């Protein structure tokens, strides 16, 4: 009989306050399992961002600092450089939403990748600004209806969404860039393996490692959790291919 345990790197008796059906819980569980498997819990620093992803620090049992909106990779850069200046090999990763990583923080994100900062960034892409109530984000797809694109995203009027994992893969300092999804068991296993690789690349000191996670936002998409996963499988993963874009 297999017994399923809460990962060691999840805080005891913590409460997950994400909406029902939200994929943040699964994503954080995978990060926690990877931290456990790599045995790095006692030397990992998480950078939480603004938006739903900040709630990471209530559940993940590692040291954590909250970053101003979008600046996660800059905060991570400073922490990693400081550890390095003191001869420490601590692991530093960011956990950010797509608005945080790819809109307000695009400069910090991309320049950290270009510099090849030895950090890991995890970006939850749910194609909208979740915490503020579902406004159009940098990743909202064409025709997507949001509270600020009520007639649907129009390329002439609103412009195009960003393909983050592809863009980050183009940076010379990036050693690993992948997009994963969580809509079924197979994808969850693949997602975990990508997250693990990203951390392993950091441990080896090969450069900037990045995982974009296509995630559901049933509350703001106004879909059931099941229909949200169907949307990711049938619509989003055709626009945002689930694959490894770069692996050094």
């Amino acid at each position: 009989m297999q017994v399923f345990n809460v990962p060691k790197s999840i805080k005891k008796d913590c409460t997950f306050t994400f909406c029902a059906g939200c994929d943040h819980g699964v994503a954080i569980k995978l990060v926690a399992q990877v931290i456990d498997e790599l045995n790095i819990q006692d030397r990992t620093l998480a950078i939480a961002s603004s938006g739903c992803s900040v709630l990471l620090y209530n559940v993940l049992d590692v040291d954590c600092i909250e970053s101003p909106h979008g600046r996660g990779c800059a905060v991570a850069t400073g922490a990693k450089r400081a550890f390095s200046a003191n001869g420490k090999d601590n692991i530093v990763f960011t956990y950010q939403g797509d608005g945080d990583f790819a809109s307000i923080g695009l400069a910090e994100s991309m320049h950290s990748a270009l510099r090849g900062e030895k950090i890991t960034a995890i970006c939850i892409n749910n194609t909208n600004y979740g915490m503020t109530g579902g406004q159009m984000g940098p990743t909202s797809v064409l025709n997507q209806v949001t509270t600020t694109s009520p007639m649907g995203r129009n390329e002439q009027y609103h412009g195009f969404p960003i393909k983050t994992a592809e863009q980050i893969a183009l940076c010379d300092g990036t050693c690993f860039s992948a997009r994963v999804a969580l809509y079924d068991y197979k994808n969850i296993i693949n997602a975990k393996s990508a997250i693990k690789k990203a951390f392993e690349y950091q441990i080896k000191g090969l450069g900037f490692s990045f995982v974009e996670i296509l995630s559901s936002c049933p509350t703001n998409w106004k879909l059931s959790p099941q229909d949200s996963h169907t949307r990711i499988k049938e619509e989003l993963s055709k626009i945002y291919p689930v694959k490894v874009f770069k692996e050094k």
Partner: protein
Amino acid sequence: MTNKVLLKGNIAIAKAALESGCSCYFGYPITPQSEIGEFLSSEMPKRGLGYVCAESEIAAINMALGGTATGTKVLVSSSSCAVALMQEALSYAASDELPIVLVNVMRAGPGQGYIYPSQGDYNQAVTGGGNGDYHTIVLSPASVQECADFTQKAFYLAQKYRNPVILLVDGLLGQMAEGVEINTNPYQEIDNSSWRLDGNKDRTSRKIHSLEPNETALNKHIVEMHKKYRYIEENEVQCEEYMLDDADIILTAFGSLSRHAKAVCNYYREQGVKMGVFRPITLYPFPKKRLSELSLQAKQIIDIEMNMGQMLKDVQLSVLSNAQISFVGKPVGSWLKKEEIINIIDNIIKGGVNAGI
């Protein structure tokens, strides 16, 4: 035999930061402070320390958030309009209680302004340029020697109070060379093992955050921050007093302009006028109490600044007597000369108030 060398203020700051045990520098080029980053870009790598020429001032100050959170001493330097870009993260650092040391070598504003000298960032530094109810400690040097000494003090105060400290430097001082001795850091190391984020090996995990959804907890946090500010106001005020024992007329000035004020004071003393100079060194906390006491014996207070009267408000708040308060100022450019100041003060003494520039 001293170890005095001829250095620009900017280089003195960089050398003093290294002497203070600063392990990381994050910055972005802007005149008139670029020499700080230029000097450290060669020194830091040599010593195995951290240096990042950041993509923006926003990134630089956020790198400082991350760096200081690990318990490491971090220096950030910039100038006026670019310090404006850093205010969001400074507000976070105040709430997170992170000991960032930020050097602002001032240029002229508002907006882009120009690289002319000015003291136009007094308000930005002293009243907190970011959002919310917080303070940064602000130190104001008047010489290249003080640029070095106050850099060391800034690191000490930042660590001691877990609070951002701003070294507010006149552009003139950053660019001016004087004889200076970079002293061995005179301050004791502050133990930061109770809060730094360096891995939860032998302890529970920690989090550093300003977000607080619980109203009671947020109120409590801000009240606690202000208890700390009150303590700083009680214990860390610093000012310089020049010929004030019997002064009827008190000149107030901060930074390098206080040296002009002293020259003016010397001139009037030769004329038999009982004049003295009061120079706040900590701009926050402002030496309110001492100026209040001194104002009781004075007939006139004349505030001299290279701006349109920013410290003047603190002077007015401090003076509890009926002493007449006047202002001599100019927003940007060549520092007010001794003769220019004397012309205006002659007028004020004759009965004109706020004779202006």
